[in-house]
């Protein structure tokens, strides 16, 4: 499992290789019957070309282009990954991405921006996780391994961005999507649509934002000097949230 961090043991590697061999035997029916999460991990780990060490996936969010009355990135994430926000359970429902309305106290300037897992280079959630369920791939995407998360919620205490949600009740079938395994009693957050990215795609929020014409969210490879995101970052000033913590997140904000 090359795309996992070194925190994953040799034992885990062996388990994955077995899984991979298992998949390679062509036992499609058996594969289908496996937990969705296992299948997702197998996809992700097989695609070394995309998730290799030479890439670091990130988002650049231009705050000036983000409209306060637009919520399309949130809707797209919800559709893609299955989570839904209800009015009656707004305190316990998961939110992988949310729109934040801000008013600068000194100047009165009003802005709006989306906030999700910042996919930090030094993620506090990964540091504190007792079992290693919170982990960072070598391409910078921070995920929760739903198979070994015990639901202690220490990562939620540690995240400076309140980016994680605990699943407080049984997940209805309608809220389960093939790309994002979900289940009661574990923690989840933005996966940067890893299932799409590993197939060469783009996260749903970025696609939706482009479709609105606002083009506030730009996805790309931060390690590729020729990518549009790298060129924009090299040309214009941008900032990271909670920069004081020096977590070096993959999500950057322009004009903020």
């Amino acid at each position: 499992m090359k795309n996992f961090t070194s925190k994953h043991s040799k034992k885990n590697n062996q388990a994955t290789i077995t899984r991979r061999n298992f998949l390679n035997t062509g036992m499609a029916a058996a594969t289908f019957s496996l937990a969705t999460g296992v299948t997702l991990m197998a996809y992700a780990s097989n695609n070394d070309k995309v998730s290799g060490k030479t890439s670091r996936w990130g988002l650049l969010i231009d705050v000036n282009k983000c409209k306060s009355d637009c919520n399309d990135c949130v809707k797209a994430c919800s559709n893609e990954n299955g989570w839904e926000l209800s009015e009656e359970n707004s305190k316990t429902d998961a939110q992988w991405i949310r729109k934040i309305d801000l008013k600068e106290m000194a100047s009165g300037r009003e802005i709006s921006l989306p906030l999700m897992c910042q996919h930090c280079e030094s993620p506090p959630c990964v540091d504190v996780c007792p079992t290693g369920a919170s982990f960072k791939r070598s391409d910078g995407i921070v995920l929760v391994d739903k198979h070994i998360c015990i639901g202690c919620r220490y990562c939620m205490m540690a995240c400076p961005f309140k980016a994680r949600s605990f699943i407080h009740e049984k997940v209805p079938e309608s809220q389960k999507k093939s790309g994002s395994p979900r289940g009661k009693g574990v923690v989840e957050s933005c996966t940067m649509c890893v299932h799409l990215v590993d197939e060469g795609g783009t996260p749903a929020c970025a696609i939706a934002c482009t479709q609105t014409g606002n083009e506030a969210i730009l996805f790309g490879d931060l390690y590729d000097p020729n990518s549009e995101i790298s060129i924009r970052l090299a040309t214009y000033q941008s900032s990271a949230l909670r920069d004081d913590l020096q977590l070096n997140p993959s999500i950057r904000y322009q004009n903020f």
Partner: protein
Amino acid sequence: MEKIKYSELRSTPKLWSLLFILALFIGAAALTVLYIEHNGHIVTGMNNQIVWGVPHVFAIFLIVAASGALNVSSIGSVFGKQGYKPVARLSSLLAMALLMGGLAVLVLDLGRLDRLIIAMTTYNFKSIFAWNVLLYTGFLGVVAIYLYAQMARGVPSFALKTAGMFAFLWRLALTTGTGSIFGWLVARQAYDAAIMAPMFIAMSFSFGLAMFILVMIGTCIMTGRRYGTELRTRQARLLGLFVGVVLYFTLIKHLSNLYVNEHIEFEKFILLNGGIYTLLFWVGQVFLGGIVPLFLLFHPKLDRKRNLVLLAALLVVLGGLAQLYVIIIGGQAYPLEIFPGYEVSSSFYDGVINSYIPTSLEFILGIGGVALALTITIIGMKILRIMPTNLSDDNVDINQE
């Protein structure tokens, strides 16, 4: 002065009635766990803003008190105070029992209780939580050996002292680890302070001794065994000292925060306008859990009478629970400062004080942990020779080094 003799507790209707009542609490907690496990945490008051609630207050209280309860043993065998030796066995037993009660609550609140084996076999050694799993289970082993050394015949004194020293150092590490669960959280205004670890050690001294005094006096009342005034007075004075140290650390923590501009709003929240948290801080922790016990324990005319010491210890315990409620839940109620200098609003309760209304389920679970700890202690005293038959002043030379 006769030789100190230890004996098992006798089977009396009082003892069995007490065990029956405790079993009811444990049973209620077990049913609660099944109910939460089946329905998910949505049936509790905890949510995505307040992720740790009342069960964690009880769990951490018990864990912190566990390491403190061992101090009585340590004073006897590590610091050589002979007068404390007769009660050292109870101290070790209570330390193990409190830890088991606290761990039970902590574990039973997990989102995936069925994956407990993963927590015990898969470690991320950068996590203080993972270290604590080892520190807690190791503590049980180390104290079990220590208790064996205290009880077995013919154990040389240097071996007992070595075991005692090892257990003492282990308990310091354990409480440091527990305090660091919060002290190492960089994200939140309420935590991220190195003082948390030593403050938790001070809290453990205080809460642990209070629990020890409650169990000691309670057992003596129930069984009619004698508990001399001298020993009680000594322990009461020590409790008063520890209560003072906790107040000192609390003062320094808040003064340090008040000096740093970025923490002032949080301090205003806890100290002035935090509603239940402000009330629990001033009335629960500082007044009832601090000043009143100090008054009861040190006023020259009150003479540290048995019932006053009992009341003081009870108040220290309640004050401790209030303190942990303020630290754990108050710390989460205050919003994360993701955007300093901005007014913030969102669908995820950014920028607002988070509300938390604990349900009775959470209290039942927490109290179940206390009941479990007491049950283990009583059963331990019932089947092992833990309690001295006579702790009267004539029989215990408290001043002997």
